[in-house]
């Protein structure tokens, strides 16, 4: 008995270190490629000069101020969204939980659109960042109330999440229909985009995301306990409410920071935790870091695709992730057919 379980542990440990190694390598390669491929006029001979003095020339500006912040932001947000997905799925004990599915992204969009109507004449950047963050907090708390103040089964939780996202979505659409001229530009933001990312965006995102990520990794064993079920967790001495609240707070910080700088990007939080679990099993101490790495890779790849699919037109990265995520969501639903979610 003992040897068998320790053997399994070893195997999954090596699967873990292998996959961490593989995805780190993949992520670095994708990042490096995204930074330089297709930069007009960039040849091999330029490469060394990119790393020397910060020159004024257009090529190094393109690389350091257009490509690098965009790619890094993509990686950071991908990791943050994947972690948020892990957290949501752990806290709700629901494999279909994701900021997009649960209406959190739509809440953010709604508040941004309303705020633009009210304060559109002011500095739009800060209006969007503030409103997006507040919107995430608002719809996050609504979902939290729904999830834990009533005895919802996971299926009903997903349904109420969808209902709420339709509700927010219809208000948003209503405003856009009525004020088409003034809100046209926001449609593009609402699809979730990384174009035009700057170092400032990256800095804003990192303020919240780094501490939240660290906390999330530190607390990952608590999520393992939480996943055993509320009663079991209580029996093991866990303060279930506190862990849930901390998790909800972390989700709001992670998703809020992401939506604030890039608009709502859906489904990364849905897809990635599943992929990570299928590689390393359900131990959150392994799932969380691996999911972060995979999420980063996925979003950078998706953004790279978004830049070239309709070249020279930009496709918002959120559309690419939705194209991947929706079939995956349906696949998950079908696979679990007959079982209570």
């Amino acid at each position, binding site marked *: 008995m003992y040897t068998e379980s320790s053997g399994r542990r070893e195997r999954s440990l090596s699967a873990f270190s292998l996959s961490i190694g593989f995805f780190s390598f993949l992520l670095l390669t994708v990042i490096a490629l995204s930074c330089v491929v297709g*930069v*007009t006029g960039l040849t091999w001979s330029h490469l060394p000069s990119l790393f020397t003095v910060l020159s*004024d020339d*257009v090529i190094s*500006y*393109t690389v350091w*101020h*257009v490509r690098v912040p965009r790619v890094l932001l993509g990686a950071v947000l991908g990791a943050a969204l994947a972690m948020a997905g892990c957290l949501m799925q752990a806290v709700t004990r629901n494999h279909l939980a994701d900021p997009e599915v649960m209406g959190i992204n739509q809440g953010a969009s709604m508040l941004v659109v309303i705020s633009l109507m009210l304060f559109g004449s002011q500095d*739009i*950047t800060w209006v969007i960042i503030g409103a997006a963050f507040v919107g995430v907090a608002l719809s996050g708390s609504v979902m939290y109330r729904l999830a834990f103040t*009533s005895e919802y089964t996971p299926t009903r939780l997903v349904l109420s999440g969808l*209902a709420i996202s339709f509700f927010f979505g219809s208000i948003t659409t209503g405003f856009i*229909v*009525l*004020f*088409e*001229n*003034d*809100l046209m*530009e926001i449609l*593009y933001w609402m699809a979730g*985009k990384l*174009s*035009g*990312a700057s170092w400032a965006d990256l800095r804003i995102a990192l303020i919240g995301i780094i501490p939240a990520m660290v906390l999330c990794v530190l607390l990952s064993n608590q999520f393992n306990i939480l996943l055993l079920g509320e009663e079991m967790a209580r029996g093991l001495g866990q303060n279930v409410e506190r862990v849930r609240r901390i998790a909800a707070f972390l989700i709001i910080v992670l998703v809020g920071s992401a939506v604030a700088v890039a608009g709502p990007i859906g489904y990364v939080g849905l897809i990635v935790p599943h992929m990570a679990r299928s590689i390393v099993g359900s131990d959150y101490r392994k799932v969380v870091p691996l999911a972060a790495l995979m999420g980063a890779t996925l979003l950078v790849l998706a953004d790279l695709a978004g*830049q070239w699919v*309709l*070249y*020279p*037109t*930009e496709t918002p990265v959120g559309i690419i992730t939705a194209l991947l995520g929706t079939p995956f969501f349906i696949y998950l639903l079908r696979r679990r057919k007959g079982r209570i979610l």
Partner: protein
Amino acid sequence: MKLFKSKNLLFAAVITLLGATMLTGCTATDKTEPQEQSANQGPVKTIPHIWGETEIQGTPTKVITLDFSFVDELTALGVAPVGMAGTGALRVPEYLADRVKEYTYVGERKEPNLELIRSANPDLIIANPDRHKMIKNELQDIAPTVALDDTSYSEVLKNTELLGDLLGKKAEAEQVKKDLEAKIQNAKQKIQGSPKVLVVGAFEDEFSVWVKDSFIGTLMSDVGTTYAFTGSKGTTSEGKSEVAKLTMERLAEINPDFLFVYGDLNLWKDNPLFKNLKAVKEGKVIEVDRNIWSRGRGPIAASLILDQGLPILTGTKK
């Protein structure tokens, strides 16, 4: 728990209501015969358009327009519409505001208020074939409706001719066409060496760019420039999409000779990539009025665009 029950009930009620609305929308009368307009006497004309053919008796005098380009066309013909649809705060295109004063506002152009249209008692409705596809039957029920495509500049000119014919303004329509064609010929002769031009909107993180098939794109091609954005965006539910998104990097790749910009140019003034554009270095970036260059559509808008653009394109004014 009880609270949730009643919330669920409310939600169910809302859904049912929505469903019911959609159903009634679908089953609405299929009558395509326009109502008799007794006021008009005269010969019956059959007008072919995108939605088929519409029979119109006599000369309509009370016209309702459901999109901006039609207001421009009617104004050019000297006909004042009795009602029109707009969007948001914009009711009449700004450049037409002093020529179109009295009218009934019939609401958002995406979903015009059918009751208001009916109460204005029109004898002709001009609709956009994409935007008003869903209310086609309802509109035809109120008054004879023609649906006209207004994407390219030549379509707009064709519409003007058709409307002139329909509204007894044949001579005016010919004059409008002649004037504009003369202007275009004149421009064509003066513009040398088909320079690359682009019309973009400058916004926070990227640019909006009008595609080659759009009104402004076709107009620019017709005066002998090379419109430099050849990508497209396909169609949306709203109709043909004529604006695409462009990052600074892609704009630098296209690197046009002339750049007409609306929106906020200040956002980009210090950007090294922007400063490196050929058009910027040569002082050929021109700030233009969004209401005319981006939202304007019709013979009057075309004429205004040429008046502003030609001196710049021929280098007689910087």
